[in-house]
Every structure is written in structure tokens, then in C-alpha cells.
């Protein structure tokens, strides 16, 4: 299983939208995909067509119980298995935060319980730095940091670096530009600055600003079914393709490392 954590250190950049649509796009390739919400605001299920507060079971209770305990995942849009955050009171939430602090890779352990039939896990983690952010960062194979082309987001870049470094970097980090609008000068300039700052870590794929994305959320449908011929849908398909290629490349790299004779390193 490949775990992709969708992260941000600023709210309102469309992180949950990206996580939900990426999960659906990955599932569109025929693989089993689960989406996990590690954000107390519990929005991911909504993006995937499930009613809010529909099930008390979720990441929070699983983490406190130390396991999934035989619960099955809900089935969201595009056949994506969904583990919502779940309802949790203030008292239990304090306990949960302590629990996460003690076991930084608890999320990983929960995901491993799902077995090898699940190809991808897409994790939507709350804005960092926070316990949720670090849990996702420590448990993932690929961290997708969502940025938007505006001054406010650009100003958070130094703290993003710090947050990534503090969390102990995962295998790979990529910055994904969301709400890209190359017709606007400022958007272009910030994009160029991101490129200069992150180099190859800035994904060549961007998610374009698209009214259809907002409308899709309003109807609780993923963009791939709500507006399949829109550019945003195309972008998510490309992002999924890129992720699959990244995954394949990682496998190949791992195999190459494994194939080396002992002592050669």
C-alpha cells in the first residue's frame, strides 16, 4: 500500500478537495483506494458523497481503540473506501492527541490492518504544524503539500519547510499548486517563485481554478463524475497518473536496492 498524505499549513487551499478527488481519480484506475480523514473538522466524507455525522466510527475511535476492531469502511463516491474522522467529544479528543503524540506512526499501523489488497491510502490531514499533520507526515510514503498561488500562501513557505523538517521527512515530498490561474499575473509569479524555491519538488501538474469544482462540492460529487471534461477533472486524472508512475518508480528503486548484494552499499 502506498500512503499519500495531502497536507497544508494554511487553511482554505482546497486540501480536502484535492484529497477527495485524488482518491476518486486513483480508484478510477481500478485499484482499491481508501481515503482517511485525520482532521477533526471531518469534511472528507462530505466531499466523497457521504452524509455528515453518519457514522460515529472513524479514525478517532479507531486510534483510541488501537485498531479498527473489525469495523468495515464506508463506501464513498467512486468506490473509495472512507475512514472519516468520526464524532469525538472534547475529553476524548485530548486523550486522542496524547495518544497520537505517543505513537507517531499509529496511522500507519491502522492502515496496515487494511491489508495488501488496498493499493492507495489518501490521507487528508489537518493544517500543520499539529499532531494530525505530523501523524500523517510520519505515516506516509508521499507527502503532497497543497499550495495556492497567492501571497498569503507564499508567506507560509518558510514555516512549511520548518514543519516538514520537524516532522522527520517522509520518503518524498511534492508541492502541488491548487487553484492555478495562469491568466493572472500574480498567480504566475507565485508559481514561478514556488518553482524557484522547490525545484523538482514542485509538481509539473497543477490543479486549475475551476468553477465546476465548487459546484461539484455543492452537489457532493467528485469532479470526475460531475464535470468529466473540465480541465480540473483532467488535472486530477493526470495527478493520479503521476502518482501511479511515482509509485512504480519507487517500487523499481526499492527492488534495485534490494537486488544489491550485501555489503555493496
Amino acid at each position: 500500500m502506498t500512503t499519500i498524505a495531502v497536507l497544508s499549513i494554511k487553511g482554505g487551499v482546497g486540501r480536502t478537495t484535492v484529497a477527495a478527488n485524488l482518491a476518486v481519480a486513483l480508484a478510477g484506475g481500478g485499484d482499491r483506494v481508501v481515503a482517511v480523514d485525520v482532521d477533526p473538522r471531518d469534511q472528507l466524507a462530505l466531499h466523497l458523497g457521504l452524509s455528515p455525522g453518519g457514522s460515529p466510527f472513524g479514525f478517532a475511535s479507531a486510534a483510541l481503540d488501537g485498531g479498527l476492531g473489525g469495523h468495515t469502511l464506508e463506501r464513498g463516491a467512486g468506490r473509495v473506501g472512507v475512514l472519516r474522522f468520526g464524532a469525538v467529544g472534547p475529553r476524548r479528543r485530548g486523550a486522542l492527541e496524547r495518544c497520537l503524540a505517543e505513537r507517531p506512526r499509529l496511522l500507519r499501523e491502522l492502515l496496515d490492518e487494511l491489508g495488501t489488497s488496498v493499493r492507495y491510502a489518501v490521507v487528508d490531514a489537518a493544517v500543520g504544524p499539529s499532531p494530525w499533520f505530523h501523524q500523517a507526515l510520519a505515516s506516509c510514503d508521499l507527502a503532497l503539500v497543497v499550495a495556492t498561488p497567492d501571497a498569503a500562501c507564499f508567506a507560509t513557505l518558510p514555516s512549511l519547510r520548518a514543519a516538514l523538517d520537524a516532522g522527520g521527512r517522509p520518503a518524498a515530498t511534492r508541492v502541488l499548486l491548487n487553484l492555478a490561474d495562469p491568466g493572472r499575473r500574480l498567480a504566475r509569479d507565485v508559481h514561478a517563485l514556488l518553482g524557484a524555491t522547490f525545484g523538482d519538488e514542485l509538481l509539473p501538474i497543477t490543479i486549475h481554478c475551476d468553477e465546476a469544482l465548487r459546484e461539484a462540492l455543492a452537489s457532493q460529487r467528485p469532479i470526475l463524475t460531475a464535470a468529466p471534461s473540465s480541465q480540473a477533472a483532467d488535472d486530477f486524472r493526470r495527478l493520479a497518473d503521476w502518482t501511479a508512475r511515482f509509485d512504480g518508480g519507487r517500487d523499481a528503486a526499492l527492488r534495485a536496492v534490494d537486488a544489491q548484494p550485501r555489503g555493496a552499499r
Partner: protein
Amino acid sequence: MRWQGTLLLAASAAALPALWAFVTTPLSAGPQLVLGLTLLGAALLLDRRRGAVATRMLAVCSVAVSLRYLYWRVTRTFEFDSPAAAVCGALLLGAELYAFAVLMLGFFQTVQPFGRHPTPLPKDPARWPTVDVFIPTYNEPRSVVRPTVLAALALDWPRDRLRVHLLDDGRRPAFRAFAAAAGARYVTRPDNLHAKAGNLNHALGVTDGELVAVFDCDHVATRSFLQLTAGWFLRDERLALVQTPHHFYNADPIERNTRQFRRVPNEGELFYGLIQPGNDFWNASFFCGSCAVLRRSALVEVGGIQTESITEDALTALRLQRRGWSTAYLSIRQAAGLATDTLAAHVTQRIRWAQGMVQILRVDNPLGGRGLGLAQRLCYLNAILHFLYAVPRLVFLAAPLAYLLFGLHICHTAAPVLLAYVLPHLVFARLANARQTGRFRYAFWDQVYETILAFYILVPTLTALLRPRAGVFKVTDKGATIEHGGLDRRLAWPYAAMLVALAVGLAVGAARLLATGGDDVGTVLVNAAWSAGSIVVLGAALCVAWEQPQRRATYRVAMQLRAMVTAPSGHTRSANLLDLSLGGCLLRLGDGIAVEPGDRVTVGLFAGEREHALRGNVVAAAGATLRVSFGELPLDEEARLVEVLFGRPDAWLDWDRRRAPDHPLASFATVVATGLGAIGRVAAAERRIAASATAVVAIAGAVSLLAQTGFHLQPLFDRLAQLPGAVLEQAALDSPPSQSGP
């Protein structure tokens, strides 16, 4: 390699006596025909083999067969019964010798076209040379010059090592403002002495980069132009020039008016596709005035761009090579320009080329002087000789008239013998030539290209030959629109006049056949067939003079790119680009989108990893296709459009990929259809002229008939009356042996 050369030399020496025997042994018509057919069979077999060896063997055979023909022509047929015939006969033989000389030089020049590759630059950009880009302009519209400057500014080269200079001999304030806004340096001078050459020399005086890249103001470079060309200067310290092809992304008047754009190679492709690589093998490729990089120190050594010829570029290269500098040619299209729009402009431009090249023959004859190797001399000589084709071409067109109209025997031989000698010579020359040029020049089109210009370069080239210092540089008009189209009578009349003369010749020939009862039937038929060929070629010239309307000021380039469009509502569609121009684009969307004509949309174009957004107005939205017009773009968006349209390194590489290979018979059919179609069209449009011409032809035929029969028509009528009977009789005589055959 050395011993191979010696071996070759020895083999050639041994073969010489055999060649001499082959060339000089006279044969009568029958055996010569058998010999010719045998050789042709061998040639066709040889032609089936691929590879350079077969090509060269075919060329050698072709030279031998042609030598045999010419030897026979000079020794056996050069006899005349009147001074007039002698003059015409000498002209024809001279034209044939010229054609043979140019063919030989062509074989030599392109014996081993050099497929030069780019040389990589050092890893450290600090070691890359500094480059000044010169864009000379005089009176061209700003819309033509802007993309050129923007593309030069976008060249992939360290910013601190690249300066772009707009050299404006028109001293126009709007150009100054544009250059300032775009970030180019604007350069003017107090006078316009020596036109483009003087303009470039002035710029040399106020700049100091190690390399100088020159672009005509309509030649828009790809981003990679310097990356691909500059490496050779670091590798070879004595290299003065790297020239790249001139590529045109619109149809020139010949391509447009014959409707053969991108189907038949245009006039320039032979030069840039074959002749320049051939020159490069001999270190004799020359500067073509644009899309080239020069080493400043070399240019300074010869005193800058030369001014004694109006083709200053070729003369400059010649002077550089005399001083021991090397030149290089890189056959990779790294810039695209505008071809001339009208035949008139095309003719003006070619007159300048022809005149300038002939000037060089007189000003600085490559056969004489110091510093050149024999091969270089021959390559330059051929480049110049090529432009002396006017007289030979007109002689070839008009030759049958000497006999048909005036009864002059300009080639003293019987028709069957002539055919037995000339056909192998022509077919061999065509075959061998096609082997070398087939990809870049289709069969029979060279005649069309030359015929169009021969009438117009005749006087200028002869003048240049006699008074080489009289030439004036004329600027070629570019980027014009043709509102109405139609026949350009001013240019077409020589073609039409020659065509009518040939038709009269045919009528008179027919009259002679009728009057004399077929004594001369072979000669008349040979001349008639020749006239028919000339008429077809002249018809094709008329076709080119019939201007097809060209209303678009910007040219659409078919282009496959991923794209997107954003509607005013903020909804998007992913799309595919179908065509793009400086004025707009056509998109195919994944699905229809709710926009109406006039709506403001943003078009995103994905070129590699770069994404470019351009704003425009919807012109038409039909189903899933959308045409968008950009209108007047802000400078930064225009720069992005130029980058997408012209900047991609591979923008022009596949230009001729989908073109069918040459089939000589198909080419022949195309030229014939073009020529006859045009004659019909012109006759229909110019009814009065056509009627007069027909009357002239008819009267000439009738008068000739009357004159030759001495106004005694009775014998003619008798003969005509007897004709069916005679034919039957002949058939009766012929039939018994065939019945009694085995």
C-alpha cells in the same frame, strides 16, 4: 582513406580510354537506340538499389551518356544552311552545354551531403560566448518585427551574455517604444548607406559580443537556436559562420497559387536541404543573410559585411573563406519566416539574388584570387552559375519555334537519330539528378520555377555581368494581404506571349505537314512535342501568376498541443489545439461549453512543462470546436504566444514529414494538369485576349498553309481525299505478312 583515394584515381585513369571510346564511337540510329535502351535498362535496375554508391554510379553513367550525346551534337549536328540557323543552333548548343556544366557541378557539389550535428556547449554557462542578436529592419510593419524581437529575447541563453538589437533603418518612434518596452536595444544610424549590409556594419561598431546572430526581421527563432549553433564556435576556433535553413511557415506564391503548399517541396528546399549540406562537405557553405551566427573577429577581419554585391551575404562568406575561415551549415530548422506573398514580390526578391550572385562573378570571381581550394571555387561557381539560367531556359522554351515558324534547321540530323541520342541523355540526367535531389525537388518543377523567373532575371543578370556595380538593394515586401486575387497581367504577359507564339508555331507546323505531305514529319513531330512541353510549363507559370486571394494577415499553423479554455463563468474545459496563429487559435474541446461569440475567454496552452495563458474573444463556437481571436495582446502575452508558436525547439522539424516521396510520373501529371488547367482558366477569364490569340493562331496557320501550297489548294484537297484510301491501302499491305506469320 588515402589509399582508397589513390585506388579510385588509378581506376579512373584506367577507365579513361574506355570512356573516350564510349563517348566518341559514332553509331547510326538503330544501334544507338539499342545502346540507349540497354543503358536505360541498366540504369533502371541500378536505380532500384538504395545507397550512396548506386547514386554515384548512376551519376557517373549519366555523365558518360551525356558526354556521348554532346560529343555527337558538336561533331555531327553542328552544321547549318543559313546564318540565322547558325545563330539559333549555337544558342541551343550553348544552352545544352550550360545545362550539362551545371549538372556536373551539381553532382560534384552534392557528392556527399554533410549531415552536421550540433556540438554540445560546455557545462558551465560562464564559458559560453557572449552573443549580439541583430535584427535589421527598414520598412516592414511592426506586426512582422514584433514576434522576431520577442523570440530573440526569449532565446535560451544566459541573460548576461545575450543582447538583442533592433536595427531600424526606418527610424520609427513606434519601433523605439516597442524595443524599450520589450527589453531590446534600439539602434539607428544617420544614413542608410549600403542598406542591410551597412546597417549590420554600423551595429558591429556599437556592440562587442563574441558572436553575432543575424535574423531578418521576419525570421522568428526557436528558443534553442543558439544552443544548437554556438557549440561549433567553441570546438573550431577558425569557424566564422554557422548557417541554418530559412524555413517559411506560410505558402509562397508558387505554392499557394498552384495549391501545392506542403505537398511539393518549394523552391528553397533544394538549396537548404541538399546544396548547403553538399557545400558544407567541401567547407563551402555560405552565409544566407539570416538565421545564422557569425564570429565577430572573423567579420572584423574582412571589414564587416561586404557591400560590393547586393547579395552581401554570399560575398561576405566568400571573403571569409579566402582568409582561411571555415563555414558550417546545420540543416536543422531553428527559425521560421514569412515567404513572399505575391509573385511580384517573389520576382523582385529573386531578381536581387540573381543580380547579386552574378555581381560576385565580376567583383570577386571565385575561380580566381587567393585562399580557396578547388572544391570551394567550384561550389561558389555553381552557386553563381545557377543564376545564369535565364538565357538557356528561354532558349529551351523557344527553340522549337526556329524550325516551326522559320523553317530553320538548328540541329543537323534526322529526327530518329536525334531521339536515339537525346532521349538516353535526358532520361539518364533526370534519373541521376532525381537520385540526389528527389527529396527536395520534385521532377519537372525545376522547369516551372525557372520559367517563372527567366523572363525577369534575364536583363538584370546580363546587366550585372556587364556592369557589376550598378545593382540596387530592393527590400522584399512581406506580410501583405491580397484582397481580390486574379491574374497579375503585368507579370503574366511574357508567359502568355511566349505561349501564343508556341501555339502559332504548332499551327504553322501543322500547315507544313499538310502542305508538304509529310516529308518532314519526324522533325515536325519532335518540335511539336517540344512545343507542347513548353506550353505546359508556361501554363504552370500562368497558374502562378494567377494570385489566389490571401485575406488573412496572420498564418495559421497546424499544431497539436494540449490546451484548456476558461469561460467567463469560471468553468473550464480541457482541449486540444488544432491550429494557432499570431491572431488566434482553433480548439477542440472535450465537451461543449456555454460560450457565445464575443465572450472573453482564457486559453491555456501546455507546451512541454510550460503553461501559457492567453486571453481572447470567442469568434465561433460550434459543438466541441471553438475559434478564439486574440486581438491586440499585451506585450507579455504576445511574448508567450510567440514562444508557443515559434519558440519550441521542435516546432518546424516535422514540417515535411507527411509529404509523399517524389514519383516522377505523378509530378509530370501534376505539372501538366496545373499548366493546362491554368491555360483554360486564363482563357475563360480573359476572353478578348484569348479570342484574339486564337484568331492569330488560326490566321497564321491558314496563311502558312496558303503560302506553302502557293495558293494552289487543289493538290492538298486531293491529298486529303486520298488520305483514307492511302491508309487503308497501307493497312492492306501490312496485313498479309502478319497473317502468314507463325
